[in-house]
């Protein structure tokens, strides 16, 4: 199997640049030899005088298409290692129409103009200068054209999927259309110009036959495999009546013939169905972090080799976080004759959401039957030992955590021994009334001066001592309870993030919601036995000013300044200098919080998703959050990383305090 430079992610090395230069030279020779160094010849196609453009282009297209499909059939390359462009209908339709107009006006397109330039054509030079101007124009009007640029984005879409045909059949039909077009344009040339060099010639006959046979062979190799519908009676082995519509689910399975629903997979695995081979195609480290119980980890590029023994035996289910990669892999395996490959609907994220999310955390009401199912699934997939529900129920949280928890869930679980509740309000507030069993701790006790910078999170060694004094053990589930300020809880969450203690949640609405709902409070001090919390340093998210400076230079990160707008704009300042880091985007932390009449809540995940989608292009975009001291920014960090699933979020703890005081750093 060939590893392309793209799949190795080394398209920017000098080796890649050199190879590109060589391929470019060959490209130039091919275009020149085809006679494309002449605008008159190129535009001939639009006046039916010289159809060379169509002949060359379609022949090249079919040659490369057949070649690539043969290479895949032979196992030389997998389609995942080739860069695929997304289908964006709006941009490609309007872009195509415009491009055609530009093409017929100038008589050139970018590649042929390069060859025209080399052949001494002044109009090619003018066209190239125009195209450079046009590119600059595009950059300058990007803001205006952006809606069209992404309009109708379908992601990676193959013609075979659009037409609901197999790849082999699609390629075959495409070749037939091409051959017909060759004969057609020869006829046109004969009619318009009175001569056709190839119409009815021995050459064209043989050429057509060769293409036809190659395409036919390909179709036979790939087989006309249509994917079987995977329809099994849902929940057939359980007596529990499941209350959500079985019918609707079955129908869904039928429509999405190559998908398997999360619930069905969960049921099959739970019932120890030997037929299912579950394959996690994510990178090794993600697999090591968490995977569906029973899944094996195989790299995308190794799939066909590793799965060969399972070809058309039982069911192979592929999953990743989302669905694009598994879908591509499934197509590729399908072409290699695998007819038993399915992908998990909505990927791992969907699976966790549908099957493993605790009932207490769901926004919609869950019928009893399903609730029981979910508990069974959680028990099985999250490694819960049977008959130990109390304590383990809390442990299960580990897989949802870090996240938000609601007061109802806490009221049902607060007495459990593995539960540690930290009350972050002021001492006197705690003394008068608190959630039973909770410990008082000020968020400020985790911060101090480090290397001269005030108010930064203390080193892990000190944090783990403080945690030990509160009797917290690595397996405990920690609940953070704030008073009026949700960012008090998120600041303390940074302690647990730094120590790699993911088993925590923030009580949404804080103590004030708990209180306003009339839930139990008391004034007792809990008994605590010191623990010796292991020293663990899991902090790969805190960055220093140098990293931020580099990110500004490299332009590879979005810098989110979460301070109130007047501070961002420099109208207010409590620091050495007023303003903000050049290029930083302002998203005040207060925008993420909703005030109810008595307490503050985090906005819903839907609201937050929409808000951040408009600021941050993808879940993997690099984001650096900061505020003045790291306090407010911890809230944005928590939301992006733990509620919205952004994977590349960093925290500039030193913040504006440090940045403004370092006079050598640029500000705006």
């Amino acid at each position, binding site marked *: 199997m060939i590893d392309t430079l793209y799949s190795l992610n080394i398209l920017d090395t000098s080796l890649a640049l050199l190879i590109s230069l060589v*391929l470019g030279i060959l490209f130039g020779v091919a275009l020149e030899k085809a006679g494309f160094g002449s605008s008159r010849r190129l535009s001939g196609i639009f006046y039916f005088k010289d159809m060379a453009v169509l002949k060359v282009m379609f022949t090249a297209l079919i040659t490369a298409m057949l070649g690539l499909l043969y290479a895949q059939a032979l196992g030389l390359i997998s389609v995942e290692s080739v860069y695929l462009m997304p289908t964006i209908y709006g941009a490609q339709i309007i872009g195509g129409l415009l491009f055609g107009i530009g*093409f017929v006006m*100038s008589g050139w397109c970018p590649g042929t103009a390069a060859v025209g330039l080399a052949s001494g054509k002044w109009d090619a030079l003018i066209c190239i200068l125009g195209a450079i101007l046009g590119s600059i124009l595009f950059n300058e009007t990007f803001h205006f054209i952006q809606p069209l640029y992404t309009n109708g984005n379908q992601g990676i879409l193959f013609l075979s999927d659009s037409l609901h045909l197999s790849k082999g059949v699609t390629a075959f039909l495409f070749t037939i259309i091409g051959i017909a077009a060759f004969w057609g344009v020869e006829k046109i040339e004969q009619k318009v110009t009175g001569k056709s060099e190839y119409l009815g010639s021995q050459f*064209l006959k043989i050429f057509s036959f060769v293409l036809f046979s190659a395409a036919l062979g390909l179709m036979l190799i790939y087989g006309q495999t249509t994917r079987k519908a995977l329809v099994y009676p849902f929940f057939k082995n359980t007596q529990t009546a499941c209350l959500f519509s079985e019918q609707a689910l079955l129908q869904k399975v039928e429509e999405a013939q190559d998908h398997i629903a999360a619930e069905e997979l969960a049921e099959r695995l739970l019932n120890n169905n030997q037929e299912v081979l579950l394959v996690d195609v994510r990178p090794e480290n993600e697999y090591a972090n968490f995977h569906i119980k029973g899944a094996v980890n195989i790299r995308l590029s190794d799939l066909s080799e590793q799965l060969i023994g399972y070809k058309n035996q039982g069911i192979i289910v592929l999953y990743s976080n989302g669905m694009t990669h598994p879908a591509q892999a499934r197509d590729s395996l399908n072409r290699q004759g695998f007819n038993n490959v399915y992908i998990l609907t909505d990927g791992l994220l969907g699976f966790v959401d549908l099957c493993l999310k605790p009932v207490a955390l769901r926004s919609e009401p869950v019928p009893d039957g399903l609730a029981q199912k979910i508990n069974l699934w959680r028990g099985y997939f999250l490694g819960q030992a049977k008959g130990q529900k109390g304590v383990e129920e809390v442990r299960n949280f580990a897989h949802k955590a870090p996240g938000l928890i609601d007061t109802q869930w806490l009221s049902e679980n607060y007495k459990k021994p593995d539960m540690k509740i930290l009350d972050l309000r002021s001492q006197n507030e705690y003394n008068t009334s608190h959630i039973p069993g909770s410990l008082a701790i000020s968020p400020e006790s985790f911060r101090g001066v480090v290397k001269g910078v005030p108010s930064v999170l203390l080193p892990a060694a000190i944090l783990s001592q403080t945690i030990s004094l509160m009797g917290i053990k690595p397996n405990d589930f920690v609940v953070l309870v704030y008073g009026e300020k949700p960012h008090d809880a998120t600041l303390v969450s940074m302690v647990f993030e730094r120590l790699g203690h993911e088993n925590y949640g923030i009580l949404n609405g804080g103590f004030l919601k708990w209180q306003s709902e009339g839930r139990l409070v008391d004034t007792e001090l809990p008994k605590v036995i010191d623990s010796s919390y292991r020293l663990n340093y899991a902090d790969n998210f805190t960055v220093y000013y140098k990293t931020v400076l580099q990110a500004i230079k490299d332009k590879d990160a979005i810098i989110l300044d979460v301070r109130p707008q007047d501070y961002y704009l420099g109208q207010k300042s409590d620091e050495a200098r007023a303003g903000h880091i050049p290029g930083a985007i302002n998203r005040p932390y207060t925008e993420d919080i909703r005030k109810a009449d008595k307490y503050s809540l985090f906005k819903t995940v839907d609201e937050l998703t929409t808000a951040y989608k408009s600021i941050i292009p993808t879940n993997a975009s690099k984001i650096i959050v900061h505020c003045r001291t790291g306090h407010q920014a911890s809230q944005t960090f928590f939301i992006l990383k733990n509620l919205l699933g952004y994977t590349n979020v960093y925290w500039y703890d030193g913040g504006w305090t440090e940045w403004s005081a370092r006079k050598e750093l640029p500000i705006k």
Partner: protein
Amino acid sequence: MNPYLAGVFLGSVLLASFLVLGAGLGASSGLARIAAALELSIAKTHTLSSEYFGKWGETPLNYYLVFMFVGTVLGGLFSALAAKRISFQLEKGKAASRLLRISFALIGGIIIGYASRLAQGCTSGQALTGGALLLTGSLVFLICLFAGGYLAAYFVRRQWND
């Protein structure tokens, strides 16, 4: 050269590009990168903070498609030299004025530059490369390209009048 054999040659180059680079051929991206470099040299901070060129950073030319574009010019030069096909001229119809041809070439060029950024590719990167991969959007682009060309052909035909 026989256009069909030229097509097989071109298709083989594209196939080699798929197998080695893992990406197809491209031309307009190279031009756009050159445009970004030019704009950088004129207005650096403006360009760096612009939404589209800005993400290419300070060295937009350090990109494989820029090298491919340079290669295309060189390849064209080698081939034209070998075949003695180099002639310095403004290609146009005998009866058409120089100004007309120059204006059309310039305006057409601007449109091409703009449209290929919008569609994320040109005849090479979208139509040919994406077409060979049988990507729906690239084939839509190819069809629209010819539709646009045939629609406009009548209005610009004078430049080829002999």
